[in-house]
């Protein structure tokens, strides 16, 4: 029978939740890296026992951790003590240096400000090579490892794509979304707050903004600007890599041509503000969002935690409430805190800033909490294991 492993990053450590395919009885492992912020953990599709974790701290900076046994033990790749005295330590696995001249981006006061590395928001392992992974940074940049995380190099072409016009939002200028095209290893999508969405078709050498059709009337002086949109999350179904769904600051958007043109599909949602968006594992037109009241009030409308599902690729949405709190609920669900498994029926998972992780084992029809009292959940990823 299949097994499910849920990787949960929180403000105060990481947790691993495991169950069989029934998804009813769960074992909780953790906290791992107790006391540290774990922005993201994700397993390799090429080797599910290999898991990367982004461990960060305002005091001690950025650490990359790696497990090669499904999360039982962890190491900083390349962080082993050197056997020969006199050699300078590497410690490259934690080193994220911008390539070449650091350059500047737009600052809050309109001036130009140098890029400053703060943390890794998201790690996206390669679909085919366990040694290769991408890492999205704040201040926004994309890094790549080809040695299992021992060393990281920036793909600087991204920041050359009008980077001087990118400006941090209140949450920081983070590269938070990395989507790999399973049909074309040269094509990647990334999204940055608050710069927008970008695509490369040559493996990361060169990039282009893909923000046509996004409207940011309240956030930008030019609502149709080429860059500067506050994209919160992008999701793709692997069977249709040219179709992307986006939760923008406001608005749910979709593109059917790899980002060349977006159109709004917010439809009848009670609010089209929110953070996560994801696609059903077996139904590429079924998508899930969690509406949040507004950019000023980061909690669900009416105190009711509702996942909304569209089975038509947007526009027509239904509230999913069974098992979710329908009164006095004022948590948020962050952009990286929703994921789906590959079982049938599809499992949907999300974590809240109140420390709950919910699962639906029936494509969203009903929900149950796996855990209720974790630290604020920053990210949720799911591995479906044989």
């Amino acid at each position: 029978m299949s097994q499910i492993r849920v990787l949960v990053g929180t403000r105060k450590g990481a947790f691993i939740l495991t169950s069989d395919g029934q998804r009813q009885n769960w074992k909780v492992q953790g906290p791992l890296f107790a006391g540290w912020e774990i922005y993201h953990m994700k397993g390799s599709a090429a080797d599910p026992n290999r898991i990367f974790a982004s461990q960060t701290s305002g005091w001690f900076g950025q650490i990359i951790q790696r497990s090669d046994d499904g999360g039982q033990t962890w190491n900083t790749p390349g962080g082993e003590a050197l056997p020969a005295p006199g050699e300078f330590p590497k410690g490259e696995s934690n080193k994220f240096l911008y390539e070449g001249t650091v350059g500047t981006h737009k600052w809050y006061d309109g001036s130009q400000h140098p890029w400053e590395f703060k943390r890794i928001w998201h790690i996206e392992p390669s679909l085919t090579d366990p040694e290769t992974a991408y890492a999205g940074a704040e201040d926004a940049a994309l890094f790549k490892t080809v040695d299992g995380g021992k060393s990281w190099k920036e793909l600087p072409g991204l920041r050359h794509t009008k980077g001087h016009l990118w400006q941090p939002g209140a949450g920081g200028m983070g590269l938070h979304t990395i989507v790999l095209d399973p049909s074309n290893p040269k094509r990647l999508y990334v999204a940055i707050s608050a710069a927008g969405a970008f695509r490369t078709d040559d493996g990361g050498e060169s990039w282009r903004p893909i923000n046509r059709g996004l409207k940011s009337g309240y956030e930008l002086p030019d609502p149709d600007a080429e860059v500067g949109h506050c994209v919160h999350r992008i999701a793709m179904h692997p069977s249709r890599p040219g179709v992307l769904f986006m939760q923008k600051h406001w608005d749910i958007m979709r593109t059917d041509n790899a980002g060349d043109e977006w159109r709004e599909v917010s439809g009848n949602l009670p609010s089209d503000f929110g953070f996560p968006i994801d696609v059903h594992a077996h139904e590429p037109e079924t998508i899930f969002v969690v509406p949040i009241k507004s950019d000023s009030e980061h909690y669900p409308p009416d105190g009711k935690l509702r996942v909304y599902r569209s089975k038509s690729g947007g526009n027509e949405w239904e509230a999913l409430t069974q098992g979710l709190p329908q009164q006095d609920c004022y948590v948020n669900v962050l952009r990286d805190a929703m994921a789906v498994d590959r079982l049938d029926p599809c499992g949907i998972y999300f974590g809240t800033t109140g420390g709950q992780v919910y699962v639906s084992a029936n494509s969203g029809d009903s929900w149950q909490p796996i855990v209720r009292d974790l630290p604020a959940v920053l990210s949720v990823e799911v591995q479906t294991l044989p």
Partner: protein
Amino acid sequence: MIRVALPYHLRNLARIQGDVHLEVPPPVTIGAILDALEHRYPMLCGTIRDHGTRKRRPFIRFYVCREDYSLESPETVVPESVIQGSEPFLIVGAMAGG
């Protein structure tokens, strides 16, 4: 033998129990102590000093013989009692407040 006391999170990261004892050839400066520490425990690179600039991270403090050495130059030689190991070189996470 230099005795270095690390904060809780860095001891966990480097899997250290208690103080670290380091051989540091003279002159025993702040920078030389940190070089020796990072050589022994490469996973600490970047956690005390910035990878690029090698400057002390903003919320890291160095305390020596009840004095704050955080703002001293990396070339500053530490007191003899630290060099002899009778006093530790303290690496401390700054108070968070709140």
